[in-house]
């Protein structure tokens, strides 16, 4: 499917391409295919392409000289269409400990939502989430697919220090804090996994378009996995499905 895209100049170095302002997997798929085409089109230039829910930002290494001809190149590339190959989707299994020591807000969340902890964990860990993009912090994944019964507005006053690995819910979103950071989401668990590690190449395994599910674990498995990660002996589980 081809969308009506909006191309605009964004400062001296960048061009913004926008899809309709919706969170939808078909927009994600279309924008990621376009991103791939753009990346190979500019293979010789040091061009960066940043994606989000409904846009791509192309950042050029030098000031853009001829905006109109650059846009017509891009439009041409889009209208040529993309080779639709059989797409394999990777689904990552993220271990999460939902114990109250790890999910420091899960009790309060349960009271606020009038749901049992078991129910919260079940709803949170049976859904399959789509990774839309990474932003906010290095390795912070924007996920789609949170069950509407788990929606809860962000805290009025953010926590100054949310722990690395915190699995949290804010509004209609869920996510994992890749490092200690201030944050206003409700913390319902913690994952021992490194979501971002500068010492590995690439620094993050997760790509836009991948899927992710949370697997509940107990505190002793949590500590065991932490140890294995320290010794670089842990392999994150994933499985591949075809469209």
């Amino acid at each position, binding site marked *: 499917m081809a969308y009506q895209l909006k191309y605009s100049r964004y400062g001296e170095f960048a061009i913004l391409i926008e899809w309709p302002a919706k969170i939808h997997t078909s927009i994600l798929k279309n924008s990621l295919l376009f991103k791939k085409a753009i990346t190979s089109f500019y293979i010789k230039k040091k061009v*960066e392409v940043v994606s989000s829910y409904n846009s791509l930002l192309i950042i050029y290494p030098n000031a853009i000289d001829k905006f109109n001809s650059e846009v017509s190149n891009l439009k041409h590339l889009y209208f040529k269409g993309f080779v639709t190959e059989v797409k394999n989707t990777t689904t990552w299994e993220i271990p999460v400990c939902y114990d109250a020591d790890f999910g420091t807000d899960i009790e309060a969340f349960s009271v606020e939502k009038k749901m049992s902890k078991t129910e919260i964990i079940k709803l949170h860990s049976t859904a399959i989430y789509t990774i839309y993009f990474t932003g906010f912090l290095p390795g912070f994944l924007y996920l789609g697919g949170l069950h509407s019964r788990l929606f809860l507005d962000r805290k009025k006053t953010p926590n100054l220090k949310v722990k690395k690995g915190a699995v949290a819910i804010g509004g209609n979103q869920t996510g994992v804090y890749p490092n200690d950071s201030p944050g206003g989401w409700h913390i319902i668990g913690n994952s021992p996994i490194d979501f971002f590690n500068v010492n590995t190449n690439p620094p993050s395994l997760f790509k836009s378009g991948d899927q992710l599910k949370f697997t509940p674990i107990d505190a002793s498995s949590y500590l065991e996995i932490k140890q294995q990660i320290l010794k670089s002996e842990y392999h994150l589980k994933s499985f591949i499905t075809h469209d």
Partner: protein
Amino acid sequence: MIKVLKSGFYSSIQDAGRFGYRHFGVPVSGSMDAYASKFANLIIGNTEDASVLEITMMGPELQFLKPTIIAVSGADMQPSLNNSPIKLNIPIKIFANDVLSFGKLQNGIRAYISVKGGFKTAEVLGSNSMYKNITTINRISVDNKLDYADLVTPGFGYNSTVKYDNSLFSCSEIEAYKGPEFDKLTTANKDQIFNAEFKISKLNNRMAYQLEPLVPNLLTPILTSPVLPGTVQLTPSGRLIVLMRDCQTTGGYPRILQLTERSINILSQKYTGMSLKINQKTY
């Protein structure tokens, strides 16, 4: 090696920035005043993207343990070498054990110290720019050791009459292009933005500069979308936030303006309470 005797207010190693990792959510970082940073490098024959020490408001005290050539550009913090004043923007010969220190801030807020061949601190994801959770430290502190290249060719090996553009310090007008959500502003909003005198709030750092007063508006938040250094966001409460070099890669506030590169450099030398005007620039 440089031994840090005093760290100053906020000193960090920076270069032209960390490119190619924004899709992982990694900020670009790099020298806030890219012009001053390049100048400090070029004047001693470095490439313009060599890593430099960015110092802020109150300079550090540094002891050089081996010979090199340095230059100091950007804000005038009255640099001196072994307690004798030195000039900005010229190459300076350094001998082992020389001590570089700074006095009172005269203009601007950020200065750049270049060393011949650049600093040899840890390169992470293609850049030496310090940033929390990317590099092991995000600023230097007392007793840190900062390695730099050996001096291979003694002598300056440069000859330049390029003058530093000091108008960047006195300039209180910045230029901005329309941002992606600019057209959602009312005429009254636009009038206020381009006619009002703004003041820099005390919330200003390498990530962002907030401006005062508020610009009351009816814009709705957007789906989280890419942002750049120089993007001006407008919050529902009316706060203008100018994103700077360490900004996040995405944001959810309407992006109403985009500063020119030169304006980002100008703003980098401004501090709390200073006033400025925003002028609209067209492509």
